[in-house]
């Protein structure tokens, strides 16, 4: 049952909220044993919220179960962004979007598994690795792997709130065969997000089908005075899609089956070339993301929250010991690279240069949107890989898997991944990209081309 129908039935009194919530909690526990999609199932909170809603159901999402990526703070529920350095951290506050969802009657059911701090494209850089719904030896994609996995598997009405820095929503939704929206940068408040890279992070939505995204987006979008980067302008209401184009370079991938499947599903398109994005988006993205990440991770030192050790030695010894003990390898690697790119002597050549190249890439997209409403690309250049294949990749090869998703993320452009059918047993996603604040066009067009068979 799609979310809209469930909400209508709840309103009419045809469905018991408590029964639905109990059913999804049971389901989550069973699935979690096999698929590792949750770091925490917040049973007490879910039951408490469903009690209140059953007694006095109110709000635009009354009774809707929602799972939350681990990196978004939920009051008194362990929120550790997939990292051991935040083990046992129970935020004393709700992220703005969590409060908004609860105020509208949503039921928070748990925290979904992810790469540590979002550092990865396969959800393997963490202690709780989610497994692909279509093959247990295969990755869900990442970093929002747990969100996509559960969204695909659940038989109950449900949405998942996830987060993208360089493709962490689109990538797993493609690998798990679900719909998703990564909104315009700044459209959704990030107050209470355990941040990765501030000029890139965006909170978004995953659901089984594209048509279910809008009711959730309506609630979480909007200016928040607690997040100075949140936008005061609203998204455009015009949803008419007149002209579309496929991105030439994005279809120069090796996997012909992915290419053919996506192209067989669309018609009346032009072809546009974005050569600067092809050449520069990966290094530009990683320099910016790692630079910002290395400063964000400076706050984890075992003093105010999260994992710690006995207070021994001076500041430097104590902080270094805690950080070395609890950060996983990919975090250490990114801290080293990010710190390097910001060091005196190198800052202009890497960090500042990357920020300038980002302007070039944004301009290239903006020029394309003067002519086209939507640009089209495969979401991922490959089918979901097996864990044994991922283990053989070097870190650079890992980063290069993000080739198609980092562009729109760098430019803060909204994008959806739309389920497009299967190759063998694995799903394929089509990525639609629009101009800033044109989410309505994306969702409208996404609904038209969606194919879940």
């Amino acid at each position: 049952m799609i979310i809209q129908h469930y909400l209508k039935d709840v309103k009419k009194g045809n469905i018991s909220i408590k029964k639905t919530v109990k059913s999804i909690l049971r389901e989550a526990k069973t699935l979690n044993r096999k698929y590792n999609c949750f770091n925490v199932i917040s049973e007490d909170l879910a039951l408490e919220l469903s009690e209140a809603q059953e007694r006095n159901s109110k709000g635009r999402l009354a009774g809707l179960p929602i799972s939350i990526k681990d990196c978004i703070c939920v009051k008194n529920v362990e929120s550790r962004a997939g990292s051991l350095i935040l083990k046992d951290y129970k935020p004393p506050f709700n992220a703005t979007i969590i409060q908004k969802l609860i105020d509208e009657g949503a039921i928070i059911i748990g925290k979904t598994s992810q790469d540590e701090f979002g550092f990865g494209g396969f959800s393997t850089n963490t202690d709780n690795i989610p497994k692909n719904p279509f093959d247990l030896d295969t990755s869900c994609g990442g970093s929002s792997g747990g969100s996509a996995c559960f969204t695909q598997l659940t038989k109950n009405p449900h949405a998942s709130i996830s987060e993208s820095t360089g493709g962490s929503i689109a990538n797993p939704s493609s690998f798990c065969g679900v719909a998703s929206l990564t909104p315009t940068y700044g459209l959704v408040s990030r107050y209470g997000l355990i941040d990765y890279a501030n000029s890139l992070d965006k909170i978004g939505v995953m659901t089984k089908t594209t048509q279910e995204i809008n009711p959730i987006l309506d609630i979480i979008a909007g200016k928040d005075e607690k997040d100075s980067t949140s936008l005061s302008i609203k998204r455009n209401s015009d949803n008419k899609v007149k002209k579309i184009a496929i991105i030439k370079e994005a279809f120069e991938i090796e996997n012909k089956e992915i290419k053919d499947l996506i192209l067989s599903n669309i018609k009346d398109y032009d072809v546009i070339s974005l050569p600067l994005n092809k050449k520069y988006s990966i290094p530009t993205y990683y320099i910016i993301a790692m630079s910002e990440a290395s400063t964000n991770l400076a706050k984890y030192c075992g003093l105010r929250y999260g994992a710690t050790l006995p207070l021994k030695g001076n500041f430097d010894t104590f902080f270094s010991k805690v950080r070395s003990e609890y950060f996983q390898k990919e975090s250490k690697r990114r801290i080293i690279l990010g710190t390097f790119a910001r060091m005196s002597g190198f800052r202009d050549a890497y960090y500042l240069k990357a920020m300038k190249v980002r302007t070039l890439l944004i301009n290239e997209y903006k020029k394309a949107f003067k002519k086209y409403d939507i640009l089209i690309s495969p979401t991922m250049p490959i089918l979901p890989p097996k864990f044994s294949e991922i283990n053989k990749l070097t870190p650079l090869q890992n980063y290069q898997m993000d080739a198609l998703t980092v562009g729109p993320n760098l430019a803060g452009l909204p994008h959806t991944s739309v389920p497009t059918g299967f190759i063998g047993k694995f799903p394929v996603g089509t990525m639609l990209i629009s101009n800033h604040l044109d989410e309505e066009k994306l969702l409208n067009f996404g609904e038209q081309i969606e194919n879940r068979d």
Partner: protein
Amino acid sequence: MKIDKDLIKKIATNARLNLTESEVNEFLPQLKEILAAFEEIQKAPTKNIEPSFQPLEIKNITREDKVGTCLSQEEVLKNTKHKSNGYFKGPKAL
């Protein structure tokens, strides 16, 4: 750009990380490969191009300087083992 073990160790010290010798040995070829790929951006034509520190233009906003609600001292200290008399207790400064 020449990256060697000493540079990695220096960066690690700056970033408050103690890397083991085996971590340094593992990272060295990986970082060399990654930085060589990052070099690509040096070729991008950015003369007279302004940096985009945010993807969209964002204006500074201010609010009235009024006291609002905030977390209590108890809530703020709830997540640490290191506290004393209502304060965080830190390691020695010297």
